[in-house]
């Protein structure tokens, strides 16, 4: 067999074998392999794409959240402020009401006091009048022998007035 002359037998065997090999490999090996490689690449590409999408959605969501958070904070501040205002208003109103009530009570008390004072003064006046009358009676009914006795009587009388006994005793 020569080195550079193709042998007939080997050529025929090679033609047959290689054709069969080509057919079998193309049909049962390369087609499924290339198909699943393509599918895998596609699915990886898809996965990467959807991951990218998810990422951008996440970012969107995050920014949404942030803005919502900000808004919530603003709303909270508003609500707090309103509550504070309301509290202040209530407190002020209560204070005002209390003050008014106090004032009203003071006025009432003053009225009462003045009324009582007037009554007391009236009573005092009538008592003083009665005492004066009884003193005068006693003075008149009793003989005034000497001035010292006179003095004594007057001072005891005055003493009695002071303690209020005289009126009770009489």
């Amino acid at each position, binding site marked *: *067999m020569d080195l550079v002359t193709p042998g007939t037998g*080997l050529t025929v065997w090679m033609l047959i074998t290689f054709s*069969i090999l080509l057919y079998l*490999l*193309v049909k049962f090996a*390369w087609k499924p392999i290339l198909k699943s*490689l393509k599918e895998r690449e596609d699915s990886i590409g898809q996965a990467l794409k959807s991951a990218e999408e998810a990422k951008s959605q996440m970012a969107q969501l995050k920014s949404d959240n942030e803005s919502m958070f900000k808004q919530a904070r603003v709303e909270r501040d508003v609500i707090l402020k309103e509550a504070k205002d309301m509290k202040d208003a209530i407190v002020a109103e209560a204070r005002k009401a209390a003050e008014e009530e106090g004032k009203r009570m003071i006025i009432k008390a003053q009225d009462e006091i003045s009324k009582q004072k007037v009554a007391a003064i009236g009573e005092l006046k009538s008592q003083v009048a009665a005492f004066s009358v009884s003193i005068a009676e006693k003075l008149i009914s009793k003989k005034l022998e000497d001035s010292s006795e006179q003095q004594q009587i007057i001072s005891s009388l005055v003493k009695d007035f002071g303690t209020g006994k005289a009126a009770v005793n009489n």
Partner: protein
Amino acid sequence: MPENKRFYNSKTFRFLLVFSIFCTFGLNNAFADHQTEGVAEEMHATEAHAEGETAKPTKFEPGKMILEHVKDGYGWHLWGTTTIPLPMIIYSKSKGLQVFSSGHFGHNPHYEVYNGYTLNHESKLVSEDPAENFYDFSITKNVLALLIGSSLLLIIFLSVARSYTKRQGQAPKGLQSLVEPLIIFIRDEVAGPSIGPKAYKFVPFLLTIFFFIFINNLLGLVPIFPGGANLTGNIAITMVLALMVFVVTSFSGNKTYWKHIFMPDVPKGLWILLIPIEIIGVVLKPFVLMLRLFANITAGHIIILGFFSLIFIFGEMNQYLGGGVGIFSVAFTTFMSVLELLVAFLQAYVFTLLASLYIGAAVEEHHHAEDKH
């Protein structure tokens, strides 16, 4: 003339120029080698005859040894006189189909006659009757290697295909992850850029070509039985591979491709010159594919065998010298084997790349804007 200038700058012209030079050298060298080897063998044969039984019967003949290993054979030589006999299948009009074992011929150099056939001193099958016309379809060493290699390819890729369908959409595993980068490499780096958008149609064919050459190149480097045959360094094998590329290229060639060959854009007077050149170019492309693979792989085998021959050449002079040379030979052969591993991949790659470039040229859609410059 701008059109002429275009032609001289065209890819085809450059291809033609380079490849015709390559081809001339390649052919000359191959024929020259062959002739000198033939002469050498004849000389050896006459020497052996002249010396007869008195001379040393086992004189080492490196040329013969190397050629025997590089060429096809009717038996698979293992060691010493141990050879696996292979079936002979011969068809002749007078005797019909004959099948028998090659073991009946006995051993080199004293072949016996069996069934009216024997092997000559070049281990070539000859009939006793010189007028007999016979066809030899024997399962030779290379046919067996071809069957082994093809079975191996089927086993590997059918199992890989099965794991692809079984583990759909999952990461590759085992053998699958070993071949997947190569498959993707051929698909995306070889077929894709050279063929263009229609590449997917040719990827299965190119993958078959690539892995056939690659696996058989590697098997050829294994020195023991299932390997060691110089299959991809056999011109018949590379011829069929190149023929396949030629057939695929020609059948997928579009209108512009054929128009470029049979009606080039040059004045009609030049057609008589150009059309034959273009036709030669079309034939030359696969021819070069055939020669390149054959020459590269055969050369690798010859170099490795040559280094081993050195041991015995020097060993015949002096045992210790042979041993000393042996150390260098083993070192060099190891180096060469590693280099051949690279060559095994490289040649498979180059063959596939050029095949896809040829296919790419055949299916390329020519844009008129591009044609103008």
